[in-house]
């Protein structure tokens, strides 16, 4: 018995094969699929089913997986005790994060500046400069401070995922730790990051709004939209999946921009 036997070879691919398949691949990713065209002309029962599916995706979002069951694209009213429970859990996560190796996060949280509720989930924003973002609900718990985070998605009691630093926080985009004060009728993104844990993704955005802004709706890169919560000159929201913010539509005392 030797190592070669346990590491079987694979047939060699020639340079010509690589070149020809590269060309094919590039043609496929630059040419629109003809199958998509056919889908648009479905009608009758098939079209109805398609429309229903599209409506469900629009309502729930393509990332409304069981890991995030109950999430809504619009804020909802908190259940009795929901926010106080979330605050206690966030404080505990902050202490855990502060004690993680290499962490520079503070053990205590700044005052709460915004709370966003979506079904069973609570997003709490602490502080206004370099704020700490905490998301809790069902089996999701996450606290993000700067580029560091702690928590878990879909954790089971006793599971090794429980209360460990997230493996990675990826795609911290549009992060602007010192955002300019927005114009009275504008909104500026401060933080938009995506966290991945155990193959599941969720994204959080936080920013500042001008003095005349009363509401803000995010258009995401996957063409869905999310209504944010606006409080104390800030806005915030989160959603399942890795989509980023493409644009923001704000409602002001003067109307919609």
């Amino acid at each position, binding site marked *: *018995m*030797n*190592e*070669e*036997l*346990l*590491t*079987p*070879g*694979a*047939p*060699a*691919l*020639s340079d*010509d*094969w*690589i070149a*020809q*398949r*590269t060309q*094919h*691949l*590039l*043609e*496929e*990713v*630059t040419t629109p*699929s*003809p*199958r998509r065209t056919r889908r648009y002309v479905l009608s009758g029962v098939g079209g109805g089913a398609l429309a229903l599916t599209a409506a469900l995706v629009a309502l729930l979002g393509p990332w409304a997986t069981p890991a995030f069951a109950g999430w809504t694209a619009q804020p909802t009213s908190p259940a009795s005790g929901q926010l106080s429970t979330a605050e206690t859990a966030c404080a505990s996560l902050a202490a855990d994060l502060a004690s993680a190796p290499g962490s520079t996060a503070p053990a205590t949280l700044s005052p709460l500046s915004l709370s966003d509720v979506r079904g069973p989930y609570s997003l709490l924003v602490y502080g206004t400069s370099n704020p700490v973002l905490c998301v809790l609900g069902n089996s999701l718990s996450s606290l993000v401070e700067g580029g560091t985070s702690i928590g878990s998605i879909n954790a089971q009691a006793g599971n*090794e*995922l429980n209360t*460990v630093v997230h*493996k*990675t926080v*990826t795609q911290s985009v549009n992060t602007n730790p010192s955002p300019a004060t927005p114009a009275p009728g504008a909104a500026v993104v401060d933080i938009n990051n995506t966290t*991945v844990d*155990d*193959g599941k*993704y969720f994204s959080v955005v936080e920013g500042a709004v001008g003095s005349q802004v009363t509401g803000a709706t995010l258009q995401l*890169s*996957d063409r869905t939209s999310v209504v944010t919560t606006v409080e104390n000159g800030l806005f915030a929201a989160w959603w399942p999946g*890795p*989509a980023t913010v493409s644009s923001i539509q704000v409602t002001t005392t003067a109307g919609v921009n």
Partner: protein
Amino acid sequence: MRTYDELDDADLWELSASDREAFGEIFRRHARAVFAICYWRTGDAAMAEDVTSVVFLEAWRRRDLVVLEQRSALPWLLGVANHTSRNATRSLCRYTHALKRLDGHRELPTDDEVIDRIDAETSLRMVNDIARDLSEPEREIVLLVFWSGLSYEATSVALGIPVGTVRSRVSRTRRKLQLRLGDNRVTKEAS
């Protein structure tokens, strides 16, 4: 101006949004490693060639989900390859039209390539016989850690599981193979 050779996968991945050739460079870099996984999974060189193409088409479709490990796309691509080739027939069906457009460009293998394939199939059959009792998670460890040489961290990205789980699966898989083989020369793993 920099050439593709001077860019790492993370740079190429970002660039591919506006420059599709950059995605072609990622294919050129990693096609052989992806093909090996597909071949070990399917045991059929012709099928593995098409599954390799499908892996990159699927990677392009899911490019918003990419997780780069130390700026390398390879672990994530091998994860896609592992998943795609496990359901090879269904994956190929999904891209029937794309693969159909390869017809007319396929070349018959040369005599040397046929011999190479027979040797590889013989070797794979023998190894598969040894590994026949392994569970699916243990087979994934064999494919990614032992044969492809991924680190535990990279395997964690490929499989979407915690590093600790990778470590415990490696330990379990190695124990099983050592019991079967009666020695400790079971891997050439990287970590």
